[in-house]
């Protein structure tokens, strides 16, 4: 096996060669094909409680995953004990273990023509910020401290802050994937994040909490100094919730939680679920299933944006592709195994950076071009504005869902009062056929670009 050239990053040349050693060892012990994934990461956090340093953590992880194909059988193995001698033994044992399993002729590596060729340094997508390397612990602590508003915030009369938890964290993830068919790929990214949770108490002793966060692949992109203020505003806005009768209402779902309603769609579009008869979107490919307003595209190769990646877990090259266009399903997520098993065209393993495009059923967008929660409520008139989900589930086989929600009632486009202990119930296909509007306000910090959404005729219980 050809040795790798030296590179920079968390993963050293020696460690890359160790990964390649695993491929050699597995082949020597009788495997027909092998994929190895070597991951290293570091994570530092500085947590503040009520304005004081509360927790400091430093994490440094490394692991090797082996995907072994031997005698038309397949198994997955991992270890974080990376010394060469123990890896030799580990790999030999892994190949033996694979041979105990039943034959599965569909298990193979992807064809080399489908794998990514340009992920050499890991930094091609521009997701690594060199500023990470220059940050001293004192600066990290300073960024956590600057979030704090404990003792400084002005609350409405009778309201007091019970606790304030702020955290600054940064991380580097470095992943090197190689296989015995010649694929070599690397993905490296930094992440900087801050968050704050504030709990307040009203004069009656009732508590309310608010949470906010921001993150970015770049330090300069981090929205600093705003989390605690936003968290406090969110906590205060929930004071004195009123009971609200159940019924069928318009539902506006805030951009900070709207991905919760998209997630079941992606799960159901996975060919593994379809093949196992546990998908409510079986047989939907090429058919119009949802409202014509629903268009989701995967912009996997967008440089510098969270979620972007050049290759999936198999090493298959990602591409920018349509998932759902005007309500019609355009893509199933089909890996090599599922493609061979079902005869379907292989695509990629899951979504990378999905973007839900703006839509308005009446065809109008606000004059200033901004379509956010306030504008959408104004257009909807009355209903429930959902700002959080409290538990719940979606049955993957039927698409039936039931979620606890929290948020606000609104009338004439304006919020009237907070609501709590409400539940929405329905079916995913029906819900997405009732899509009235999708905004253009997705948060820049999220991998999934899902904006504020509005649905009509949603069943609320209260």
């Amino acid at each position, binding site marked *: 096996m050809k040795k790798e050239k030296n590179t920079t990053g968390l993963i050293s040349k020696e460690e890359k060669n160790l990964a390649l050693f695993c491929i050699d060892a597995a082949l020597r012990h009788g495997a027909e094909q092998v994929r190895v994934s070597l991951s290293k990461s570091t994570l530092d956090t500085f947590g503040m*409680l009520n304005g*004081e*340093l*509360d*927790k*400091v*953590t*430093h*994490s*440094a992880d490394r692991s090797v995953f082996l995907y072994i194909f031997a005698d038309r*059988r*397949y*198994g*997955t*193995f991992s*270890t*974080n*004990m990376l010394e060469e001698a123990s890896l030799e033994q580990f790999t030999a*044992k*892994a190949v033996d*273990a694979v041979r*105990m*399993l*039943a*034959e599965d002729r569909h*298990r193979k590596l992807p064809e080399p023509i489908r794998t990514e060729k340009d992920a050499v340094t890991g930094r091609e997508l521009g997701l690594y910020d060199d500023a990470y390397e220059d940050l001293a*612990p004192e600066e990290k602590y300073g960024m956590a401290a600057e979030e704090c508003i404990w003792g400084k915030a002005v609350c409405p009369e009778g309201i007091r802050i*019970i*606790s304030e*938890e702020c955290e600054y964290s940064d991380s580097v993830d470095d992943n090197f994937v190689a296989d015995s068919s010649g694929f070599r790929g690397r993905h490296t990214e930094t992440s900087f994040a801050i968050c704050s949770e504030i*709990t307040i108490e009203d004069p009656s002793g*009732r*508590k*309310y*909490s608010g949470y906010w966060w921001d993150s970015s692949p770049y330090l300069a992109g981090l929205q600093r100094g705003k989390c605690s203020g936003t968290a406090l505003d969110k906590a205060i806005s*929930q004071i004195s919730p009123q009971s609200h009768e*159940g019924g069928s209402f318009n539902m506006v779902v805030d951009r900070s939680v709207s991905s919760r309603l998209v997630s079941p769609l992606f799960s159901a579009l996975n060919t593994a679920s379809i093949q*196992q*008869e*546990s998908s409510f979107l079986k047989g939907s490919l090429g058919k119009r299933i949802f409202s014509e307003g629903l268009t989701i595209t995967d912009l996997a190769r967008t440089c510098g944006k969270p979620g972007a990646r050049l290759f999936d877990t198999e090493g298959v090259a990602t591409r920018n592709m349509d998932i759902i266009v005007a309500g019609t399903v355009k893509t199933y997520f089909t890996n090599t195994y599922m493609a061979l098993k079902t005869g379907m065209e292989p695509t990629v393993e899951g979504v990378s950076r999905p973007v839900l495009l703006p839509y308005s059923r009446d065809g109008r967008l606000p004059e200033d071009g901004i379509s956010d929660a306030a504008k959408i409520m104004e257009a909807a008139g009355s209903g429930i504005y959902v700002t959080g989900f409290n*538990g*719940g*589930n979606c*049955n*993957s*086989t*039927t698409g*039936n869902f*039931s*979620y*606890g929600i*929290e948020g606000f009632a609104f009338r004439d486009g304006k919020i009237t009062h907070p609501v709590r*202990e*409400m*539940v*929405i*119930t329905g079916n995913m296909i029906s819900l997405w056929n009732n899509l009235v509007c999708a905004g253009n306000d997705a948060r820049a910090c999220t991998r999934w670009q899902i904006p504020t959404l509005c649905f009509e005729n949603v*069943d609320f*219980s*209260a």
Partner: protein
Amino acid sequence: MDTSYFLNRFQVTVPQLEQLVGTALSQGGDYSDLYFEHTTYNDLLLKDNEVSSGGFHIDYGVGIRVLKGDRTGYAYSENTGMKDMLQAARAASQIAQASTCLENTGYGKGYPAGTGHGFYPEYGRWSDRKPEESIQVLKKLESLIYAREKRTVKVIARLSWSESEIMMYNSAGELTCDSRPMGSIVVSVIFSENGKNENKTSSRSFRSGYGMITDAMLLEMAEEAVSGIDERFRAVRPKGGRMPVVMGAGASGILLHEAMGHSFEADFIRKGQSVFSGMIGKKICDSSISIVDDGTLEHNRGACNFDDEGVPGQKTYMVRDGILSSYLHDRISASWSGVPSTGNGRRESFRFNPIPRMRATYMESGTADRESLIASVKKGIYVDEFSNGQVKIGEGDFTFYVKSGFLIENGRLTEPVKDINIIGNGPQALADITGVGNDLKIDNGTWTCGKDQSVPVSCGIPTVLVRNLTVGGE
């Protein structure tokens, strides 16, 4: 096994452990502890009538914690060479810069150290078992299900097991070791009838060796996976709203976990965030109710010979005869509250610092029989199968998802219902429990609590009647 076995496993000596905690405290910390872990995890997956995938995974390392008052510094190393461990110790020592109002109270020094208390006696080491035998377990379970129910179209079954060797050492010189097995089996079944699909699952999980797997258990799981499928096909969403809810014995213990248990965890109390803060000694529910968090149930998924701070496993009454009697403490919150730790300091792995977590949480039996509780409801709902739950600590608002149940009409179970969410407020729901059955059942499914970190837990409850909860529906 004695402590020398564990010292050899992690290739360290007691003087080296002393050096590590000394380094960790060198910046002025009050207390330090070390958590060594070597876990091997194995799994086998049956899908499309064959056990055609599986594997094993090894996790090894040491976590080093430094406390300064109630402040925490934490770092870990994935190898146990002194150079890397000392580097982690120095990283964790940074917390000593923090200011704190909590004096060094010793963090509960004096818990008996040693190995094992016998809550999961050896019951067949997984590593001694031949792989073929484990494969046959899944094949047998699958054949039982196909034989029992002709509408079965897919069976997915997973058998997983792990063996963890844990060694803990702290700055009080306490050396504690534990060997922790865990075996889990989960089966998910898809049924088809007239072009319509439905699914059901069954699971069992024990802190046990392979002796947990018996023919009787597999038969019970197969029965559980297929029973009620007729009802599942004709189940409907009920009309939603507030109504009485009778919670079936066993899995309904999720009510206790979400609605009460989390709010009793003392890190939330220390921070003043819990809705139950400042209520020790106060009556919070009917005097017929006692709620326990128990680490001493033999082979239970939540059993702990020691918690992950080296404190012996215990049975803790959170509510006794309707009075809030204890929170769930780790060493930090116990020191802050001036009480002994209740042995609830748990963590997902050496990568995480311990925090207060539940173990097996259940309500003790009352006196009512199940039938009389159902008969007392004119119009409501009976629920007995659940999936995920969630709670907002500050407000106490909780929710959990009901996979199956029945309408109650005029004291009788009538139409089957499914896929609904129930939501309520913890203190209110507890106060609204008006009947407690005499049929406590611990649910031995694969419950995992996800408060920042994942840890295995279990839950249980007798049949209870809650006067008023919000039920999602059409």
